[in-house]
């Protein structure tokens, strides 16, 4: 579904990402992990077509990313950035913006758009808040509304940049369960997560980055067994009763 071929990308003359190659199978959850500043967000932005590449190529759904027209890209991949503004807008109006890539010149919603909006709101459980002000919602609720907007976009792939930031543990799980439910319905998910335990638990594939370079890209099991987490993060990883936990390296 998504393939990076020797990609270098960044903001200035020195690229943040060097020579990244990996592939995301259709219908999988791929999680990007790595220490702060390793280029996770840069990689996600590049994958979402938000950042021009310095070299290499990204294929989305078999087609080079650069050959997509703006709206066509927005109908293929949705992107939920980490920093989201909270505009003065109702929940319903925000989710409706997800249909923007499908609208004609008059920007009027058609019945098919309204159906997609309704469905996205019901899937994420935000339908009851339709008329509420986005700013009056809690962080976890807002996150679900943004997810609903991304779903209304009706794309094959969805990119999420740290969707669980600022959420308490209960809401983190709620959101991740929702994401994996959406994945089971066929959505390909590529996301950045800070929390290694979440990443190991919810992913089909993990891409570990360090200083802009790929360390490895493998299943959670293989990543755990490789010992790379210990080295890159400077922690000790333990497995107990089907889950993972971490302790400082020198304990």
């Amino acid at each position, binding site marked *: 579904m998504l393939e990076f071929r020797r990609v270098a990308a960044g903001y200035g003359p020195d690229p943040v990402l060097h020579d990244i190659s990996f592939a995301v199978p259709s219908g999988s959850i791929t999680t990007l992990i790595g220490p702060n500043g390793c280029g996770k967000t840069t990689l996600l*932005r590049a994958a*979402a*077509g*938000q950042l021009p590449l310095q070299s290499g190529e990204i294929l989305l759904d078999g087609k080079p990313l650069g050959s997509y027209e*703006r*709206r*066509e*890209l*927005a*109908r293929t*991949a*949705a*992107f*939920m*950035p980490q*920093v*989201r*503004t909270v*505009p*003065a*807008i*109702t929940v319903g*109006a*925000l989710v409706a*913006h*997800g249909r*923007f*890539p499908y*609208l004609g010149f008059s*920007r009027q919603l058609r019945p098919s758009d309204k159906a997609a909006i309704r469905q996205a709101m019901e899937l994420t459980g935000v339908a009851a808040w339709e*008329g*509420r*002000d986005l*700013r*009056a919602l809690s962080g976890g609720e807002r996150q679900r509304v943004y997810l609903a907007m991304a779903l209304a*976009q009706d794309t094959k792939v969805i990119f999420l940049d740290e969707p669980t930031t600022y959420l308490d543990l209960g809401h983190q799980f709620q959101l991740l369960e929702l994401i994996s439910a959406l994945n089971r319905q066929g959505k390909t998910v590529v996301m950045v997560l800070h929390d290694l335990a979440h990443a190991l638990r919810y992913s089909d594939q993990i891409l570990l980055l360090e200083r802009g370079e790929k360390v490895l890209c493998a299943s959670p099991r293989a990543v755990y067994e490789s010992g790379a987490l210990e080295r890159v993060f400077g922690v000790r990883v333990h497995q107990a009763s089907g889950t993972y936990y971490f302790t400082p390296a020198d304990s």
Partner: protein
Amino acid sequence: MRILPKFCIRSLPPTSPKGKALVIFLLGAMLCVAAALSLRCGSQDYSLAQLLDALRQGEGAPWRILVHVRFPRTLAALLAGSALALAGALMQAVLNNAMASPNVIGINAGAGFGAMLVSCLLPAAGLLPAASFLGAFGAALFIYALARRAGLSRTTLILAGLAVSSVLTALVNLLTLLYPDTVMGATGFLLGGFSGVTLAVVRGAAVYLAAGAALCVVLAGDLNVLQLGEESAASLGLHVERVRLVSVLSAALLAGGAVSFSGLLGFVGLLVPHMARRLVGGDNRWLLSASALLGGSFVLLCDVLARVLFAPFELPVGIVMSLLGGPFFLYLLLHRRGGRVYA
């Protein structure tokens, strides 16, 4: 202190399209009333019946006053108010900054400088709107480029705008000193006003205003998407850069057109979009319409007061506008409500 009864405040802005349409209708009605008042009142008051009589006769002193003085003036005030309010609403949306109105960030000053330069060096009335537009567009692009390149924070952007504005205003002042006898009465131009405005001058600017307003119609929906933030908007397939540039162009057309015949009217571009946001919420499709209607009414009413208060002497409308608008703006700021639905 409340200006509106409590139930009114609580139901504003309305959430349903019907409620918003009602607000727009009322604003339209208010604009008609303001225009009628502006035709009637002045150093000599006429009743509506007298006005109709004068129109029917097609001659006589009332007719001449109506056609050559009151009508051009009413039209000018209405158009300038609408255009400046629209330009303000556009710039606030584009820069995502509640302070970004054309008079604060130097667009009006740019237009004034362009107009003044042409009227000093190449005094031909036909060039005025073009020069005014170019001045406005130049200033707007400069501020916009600054914001893009340096990634200025909201406060810095406003400060940069103030700096640009003060340089341009200084240049305008310099020109008025160097060329004291230009076609533009210097103080009238600096404060803004409509005394002595002719239909020909307004007609010259009308193309610019019409083009700017037409762009607003196209832009409104896209500006709503831009509200979500640059990254989200881009990932929805919006051509962010193009929308911003076209908005800046539209704001320059509107502000440039208006300044070419009204002078440096400040404040309406800052105040009116805020009032409109209270009335119809943040959806730009409604907000832009409400700003245009409210801006027209506001300037018309201020101009009527300017003519009537000390008749037969006349105040520059800019003074009335600031005296009325300033305290009202403070009232709006102090009665900000956090949890209102603006869409």
